[in-house]
């Protein structure tokens, strides 16, 4: 395993109480594999990723327990300086909003070249040349001229390519992409996603793709982890999950995708709202919204149980779900 997260707990201390954002998440990514992490906002998918990268805001955030093994090493036991060297070089992150995630007052060349200056000790001139190369690699036209420009002078798609170039700079073993296409126009989304997939294959990197868009997932991902209220509720290879979900929440998500063959029918929507993280319902966190909920769901937390080879579901009634 390239990356293995074991029983991770993250909480945020706020004035109004403690928000439990991640409650015992475990997942793994192999080299060359793409794991899609799916969930609504507030499900803890981004927080888990930030904990892996080591960029949680602490305080108010706090890692309350668990292990993050990267290439066999527990990142949480590293000193901050060693941890820093892993960031960017060993694993890199692509953020959702490239406009706000790039520094507005530094040229893109400076921001790309900085990776080489800091991690590889290159001169500014060499770093600049590598920046141009990178921009070519992510297919930004006129890289040589545009390297001096500032983020606001690029279009949304081009900016996201720069983010990707920055993540690829040191050819890390793992890339975490947090909703990389959400902020883009639909037509540009596919281009950026294709580019990302292509580069991932070329470098044989592991990829964690955080998204709430099931459409994106089907094409790119090998496996899917569905998160709800800070827990993984279902984990499975991508094909299996589309065929037959083993958790009512996953089913709800799949049913709420508009489909051409159901034109004219009312679109399904999961009722209710995601839980308040300061006050997660007892038992299965999904029970107040679940169409299959029974008494046991309101008292016992369902364990993440293996339901088939390489598949797991955290539902007391996964059998009914899977076969019903």
């Amino acid at each position, binding site marked *: 395993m390239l990356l293995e997260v074991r029983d991770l707990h993250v909480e945020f201390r706020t004035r109004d109480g403690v928000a439990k954002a991640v409650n015992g998440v475990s997942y793994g990514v192999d080299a060359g594999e793409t794991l899609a992490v799916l969930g609504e906002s507030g499900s803890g998918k981004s927080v888990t990723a930030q904990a892996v*990268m080591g*960029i949680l*805001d602490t305080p108010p955030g706090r890692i309350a327990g668990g292990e993050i093994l990267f290439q066999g090493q527990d990142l949480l036991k590293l000193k901050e300086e060693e941890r*820093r*060297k*892993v*960031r*960017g*070089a060993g694993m*890199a*992150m692509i*953020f959702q*909003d490239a406009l*706000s*995630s*790039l*520094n*507005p*007052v*530094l*040229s893109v060349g400076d921001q790309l070249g*900085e*990776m080489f200056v*800091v*991690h590889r000790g290159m001169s500014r001139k060499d770093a600049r040349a590598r920046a141009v190369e990178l921009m070519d690699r992510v297919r930004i036209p006129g890289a040589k001229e545009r390297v001096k420009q*500032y983020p*606001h002078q690029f279009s949304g798609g081009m900016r996201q390519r720069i983010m990707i170039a*920055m993540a690829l700079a040191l050819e890390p073993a793992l890339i975490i992409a947090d909703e990389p296409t959400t902020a883009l126009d639909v037509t540009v989304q596919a281009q950026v996603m294709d580019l990302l997939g292509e580069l991932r294959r070329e470098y044989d990197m592991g990829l964690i793709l955080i998204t709430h868009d099931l459409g994106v997932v089907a094409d790119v991902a090998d496996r899917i982890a569905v998160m709800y209220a800070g827990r993984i509720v279902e984990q499975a290879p991508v094909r299996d999950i589309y065929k037959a979900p083993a958790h009512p929440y996953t089913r709800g998500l799949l049913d709420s995708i508009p489909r051409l063959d159901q034109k004219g029918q009312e679109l399904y929507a999961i009722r209710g709202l995601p839980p308040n993280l300061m006050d997660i319902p007892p038992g299965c966190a999904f029970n107040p919204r679940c169409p299959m909920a029974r008494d046991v769901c309101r008292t016992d937390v369902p364990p993440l149980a293996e339901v088939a080879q390489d598949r797991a579901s955290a539902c007391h009634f996964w059998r009914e779900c899977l076969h019903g």
Partner: protein
Amino acid sequence: MGRYVVRRLLQMIPVFVGATLLIFLMVNVMGDPIAGLCGDKQCDPATAAQLKREFGLDKPVWQQYLTYMGNVFTGDFGTAFNGQKVTELMGAAFPVTIRLTIVAILFEIVIGITLGVVTGLRRGRPVDTSVLLLTLVVISVPTFVTGLLLQLLLGVEWGWIKPSVSPDAGFGELIVPGLVLASVSLAYVTRLTRTSIAENRRSDYVRTAIAKGLPRRRVIVRHLLRNSLIPVVTFIGTDIGALMGGAIVTERIFNIHGVGYQLYQGILRQNTQTVVGFVTVLVLVFLVANLLVDLLYAVLDPRIRYA
């Protein structure tokens, strides 16, 4: 850029005219412009009438203003109460006040920004709370009280400085007066820097910089500071004009013979030409400083383009 500068210069004209006219009216309507011309005594009516004619004071105010401004643009700022040319007074006074302002600005930059960065990075910690409280106290105590207390403690009780500044007014003597002049702005720079740092610290691009594996120092200096200081730098720039105009109190406390002192004398003796002349120059300094700050803004923040 060139067109923007021209447009800004054109925009400055009405403000310049308005501000000088306003002060001209205030001085003329409120005061007696020939008072003081006959020494410390009142002029006798005949002399007064003659003087008024001589200075064109029997004409309507707007005509007087035009004549005055016409003279100003040929470099003639008129005569002060003691018969000296106002330009001579300016030649003596401005270098002193400029030195005082430089000292004050240095305090703002060095102490204000340092404290702001330190507290901004440690929001809610004891350092932050105590510095924040200190800035509030500095803002709450009027400058003249701060000045008097510092003069009493450092000058009289402990004898570290001379309580009043010599006519040369070298940089060394202006350190404490400069600190007094800077005090309120200093507190403000601290607060502004703190807010700016604290706001940007949570920004996405700082998170990116951390995710890139940059050392903490580099994240702070190159990414956080560079962005956070933009509003601070512009504040300090615009403060130049304000400090020079606000030096009256400080100069009075430490007996510094600068712009504020001359203005104060001019006002006490109701000498129109001194007051209007000095204020005209101050307004110009203020406007030019603001223009420079706007241009500096474009250099600091590439997102801004002037059209």
